[in-house]
C-alpha cells in the first residue's frame, strides 16, 4: 500500500494526512530484537518496500552496524549539503548552464554505495553529483567542476553532467545513452573475468528510450553482470511517469530480465536490494532490473521551479513523510545508535566540509586556455593541427608539446 502511494504521490498528497503511524520509516512495526548492548542492529522492512518480477525475495530482516548506519547518514547529509551549496552557487551565478540536483534522492546513491565493492562499476545520467562524491571525488573537485574551474574533477571541462571517478563511468547528458554503455562495461568485466559487475542507471524518463531495450536484450542474451537501475523519481522532466510510460512498473520492463522494485527513499532497503542485485549478477544469473522509487524535491534542472506539474503539497508531503535522511535519523535515534547531539554534530561537520570545499573551489582558477585543444585526441596521436575560427587560427599540436 505504501508503495502504491509512492507511485501516485500527486493524488495521495492531497488525501493522505501524514500521521505518525503512516510514516514510511516508522519503526513501530519493526521487531525490537536488536542487541542493545552490541554493535549490530536488526530491522525489519515492511513487505511493501520491495516488489518482484521473476526473482526474489530480498530478506525483510536486515542487520546493520553502528558505523554502517552512521556512514550512510553522513553520506546522505554530505550529498544534500553539496546539492544545497550547488543550488546557492547557481543562484549566485557562479555555476552556469545546465545543472541537475538530486536533493531527495540521496538514499539511492548512499545505499548503493554501501552495498557494492570499490571495483564495481557505475554509470549514470546527469543527476550525478552524489555518485561522484561517494565514488571518491572530493567535494571541492565537484564544486570546482560545476563552476568550470581547473581543479574540477574533469579539469573544469565538463560541468554538471560530466563527472567521473574510480569505476564511475560518468554522468551523461544524453537521455538513455549511458545504458548500453553500461552493458558494454559489464561485457568487458565478464570477458576479462574481473569478478565485478556494473550498475547502469537511468531515470523513469529515459526508461522509454529505445536503446535501453537494446541494452536489455544484449545483456540477457550474453548473460552480462549488469544491473539496470531505474531511478524512478516519478517525473521525466515535467512529465509524470504515468503520462509517459505505458507501464510504470519499471522493474518488470525487462520482460525476460528479472526485476525488483525498491523503496528508494529508505537507504537500508536500497543497500539490501543492491547487495542482492550485486550477488545475483556476480553469481552468473545475468542482468537484473532494479527500480528505485524515489523523489526529487527540486525541479528537473535549475531552470525548472518544479511546481508547475505537481503541487507544492505533494512535495511537502514527500519531504515530511518520506525524507531519506529523516527516515534514517529516526531509526538511529530510536535504537540509540547515536543521539540527537551527535547527529547534529555530523550535520555541522558536513556543512563545514562543504563550505570549505566551496571556498577552495572558488579559489581555483579557470582552466588554461590550452585546454581548449587537449583531450580531443590522445596525446602524441593528434592531427598535426586543429583548425580554428579564422583560416589563420590554427592550433599546432607539435609546437605545444615542445
Amino acid at each position, binding site marked *: 500500500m505504501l508503495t502504491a502511494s509512492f507511485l501516485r504521490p500527486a493524488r495521495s498528497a492531497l488525501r493522505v494526512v501524514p500521521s505518525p503511524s503512516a510514516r514510511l520509516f516508522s519503526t513501530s512495526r519493526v521487531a525490537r530484537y536488536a542487541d542493545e548492548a552490541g554493535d549490530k542492529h536488526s530491522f525489519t522492512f515492511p513487505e511493501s518496500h520491495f516488489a518482484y518480477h521473476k526473482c526474489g525475495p530480498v530478506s525483510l530482516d536486515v542487520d546493520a552496524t553502528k558505523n554502517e548506519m552512521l556512514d550512510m547518514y553522513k553520506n546522505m547529509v554530505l550529498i544534500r549539503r553539496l546539492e544545497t551549496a550547488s543550488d546557492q552557487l547557481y543562484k549566485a*551565478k*557562479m555555476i*552556469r*548552464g*545546465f545543472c541537475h540536483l538530486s536533493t531527495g534522492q540521496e538514499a539511492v546513491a548512499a545505499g548503493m554505495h554501501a552495498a557494492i565493492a570499490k571495483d564495481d562499476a557505475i554509470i549514470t545520467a546527469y543527476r550525478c553529483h552524489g555518485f561522484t562524491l561517494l565514488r571518491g571525488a572530493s567535494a571541492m573537485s565537484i564544486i570546482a567542476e560545476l*563552476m*568550470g*574551474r581547473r581543479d574540477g574533477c574533469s579539469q*573544469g*571541462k*565538463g*560541468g554538471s*553532467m*560530466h563527472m567521473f571517478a574510480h569505476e564511475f563511468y560518468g554522468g551523461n*547528458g*544524453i*537521455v*538513455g*545513452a549511458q545504458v548500453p554503455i553500461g552493458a558494454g562495461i559489464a561485457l568487458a568485466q565478464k570477458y576479462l573475468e574481473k569478478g565485478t559487475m556494473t550498475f547502469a542507471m537511468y531515470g523513469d*524518463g*529515459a526508461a*522509454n*528510450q*529505445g*536503446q535501453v531495450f537494446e541494452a536489455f536484450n544484449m545483456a540477457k542474451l550474453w548473460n552480462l553482470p549488469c544491473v539496470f537501475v531505474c531511478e524512478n523519481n516519478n517525473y*521525466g*522532466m*515535467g*512529465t509524470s511517469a504515468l*503520462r*509517459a*510510460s505505458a507501464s510504470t512498473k519499471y522493474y518488470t520492463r525487462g520482460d525476460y530480465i528479472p526485476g525488483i522494485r525498491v523503496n528508494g527513499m529508505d537507504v537500508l532497503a536500497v543497500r539490501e536490494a543492491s547487495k542482492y542485485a550485486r550477488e545475483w549478477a556476480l553469481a552468473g544469473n545475468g542482468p537484473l532490473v532494479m527500480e528505485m522509487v524515489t523523489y526529487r524535491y527540486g525541479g528537473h534542472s535549475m*531552470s525548472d521551479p518544479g511546481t*508547475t*506539474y505537481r503541487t507544492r503539497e505533494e512535495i511537502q508531503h514527500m519531504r515530511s513523510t518520506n525524507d531519506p535522511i529523516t527516515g534514517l535519523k529516526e531509526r538511529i535515534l530510536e535504537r540509540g545508535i547515536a543521539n540527537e547531539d551527535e547527529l547534529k554534530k555530523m550535520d555541522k561537520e558536513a556543512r563545514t566540509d562543504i563550505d570549505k570545499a566551496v571556498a577552495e573551489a*572558488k579559489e581555483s*582558477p*579557470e*582552466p588554461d*586556455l590550452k*585546454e*581548449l*585543444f587537449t583531450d*580531443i585526441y590522445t596525446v602524441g596521436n593528434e592531427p598535426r593541427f*586543429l*583548425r*580554428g*575560427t*579564422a*583560416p*589563420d*587560427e590554427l*592550433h599546432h599540436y607539435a609546437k605545444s608539446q615542445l
Partner: protein
Amino acid sequence: MFARKSSPLFRALRLARPSTLRYRSYASASGTPPPAEGFMPSVATSAFMNNTADQVFRNPELKAFASSSTKKMNLFQAVNEAMDVALATDDKAVVFGEDVGFGGVFRCTMGLQEKYGASRVFNTPLTEQGLVGFGIGMAAVGHTAIAEIQFADYVFPAFDQIVNEAAKYRYRSGNQFDCGGLTIRMPCMAVGHGGHYHSQSPEAYFAHTPGIKVVVPRSPIQAKGLLLAAIRDPNPVIVMEPKILYRAAVEQVPEGDYTLPLGKAEVLKQGKDVTVVGWGSQLYVLETAIAMLEKEIPGISVELIDLRSVLPWDVETIEKSVNKTGRLVIAHEAPVTSGFGAEIAATIQERCFLRLEAPVQRVAGWDIPFPLIFEKFYVPSAIRCVKGIKKALNY
C-alpha cells in the same frame, strides 16, 4: 576594383592597425556574469530588427501581407504564432515533443494545448528516435506532424529516422509514400553557457541528406514565416531555431498567416567590396563585425547575406553577389571542417573561380567539442569575423 594596390581604400586597409586576437583570462569570481538566458548585446540594437510596421512591409517578400497588422514579439512567441496558425488552418496538424504540453523548455508551445486540446498538442516520452518515427508515420498517412526535439544536440538518437526514413521515404517508394507533412523543430547554436550538449549546430550533418530541407531563421518575422512555410512544404523540413534569439530577438511581426520562401537567401545589406554569408544568430555577430570594419576603414562596403535555408541553399544569390564583389567570407558556429561553409566555398570557387580576388574565407567554430567554460574562445566572434573579412580584402 578593390584589389588595385593604388586605391586609397587599399592603403587605408593596410595602415589600419591589425586587430590582434589576444586571449584574455577571465577573472571569474568577480564581475557581473552575463544573464542566464544568454547574452547577445547586438541583437536588441540590430538594424535587422524591424521596429515599425512600415519597416516590416518594405520587405518585398512581405509586401503581399501589408494589409495585416503587426505585433511586437520575440522569437519564441513568433514560433508559437506560426504553430498556432498551422493548428488553426489545418485540422490535421499536430504538435508534439518532450514537455511541449506545458509550453516546452523555451516556451514555444505555450498555450497551444489549452487552445487546441491534448489530442493535438501533446507530450511524448523522452524518445527522440521514437518521436521522429511517430512523426514520419503520421505524415505518411497525411497528417501535418510538427515535432519538437528539445535541443538540436539531442537529435542524434533520431538521426537514423531522419536520414534513412524521413529523407528517403518518397524516393524508395517511387513516390507512393512520403512524409512531407513532417516538420522537426529544434533549438540550436550557442547560448552563452550551454556546454557540450546544449550548444551545437548540427546543420551540416543534415545538409548531407538529400530528401530533407534545413532552415535556420534569424529573427521573429523570419521564424514565423519560414516555420509556416516549412510546415506546409510537401517535404520533411528541419527548422533549427537559434535558442539565444528566443528572447533576445524582438521585432514587429505581421499577425495572421504568412509564409517566407524556403531555399532563398536574403541580402540583408548591399555592398560591393566583399560578400559575407551567415545564418541564425551568427548574423548579428557579423553585423557587429561589419560595423567595426566600417569604422576602421571608412568607405568599405560589405554585402551581408542571410542564407536562411541550408538545404537546399540559394547558390544563385551568393554567386551573383560574389560575381559583384569578388570576395566571399562565410561564418558559422559549427566546427570549420565539413561545416556547411565548406560546401559554399567549394561551390563558389567552382562557379566564380575567375572572378574571385581572394580565397574564400571561412570563420567558424574550432574543430573541437563545443566547450563549456571557453565558449567565447570557441565561437567565431565579431573580432574574428573582422579578421576573416580583412584577410579576404587584403589578399
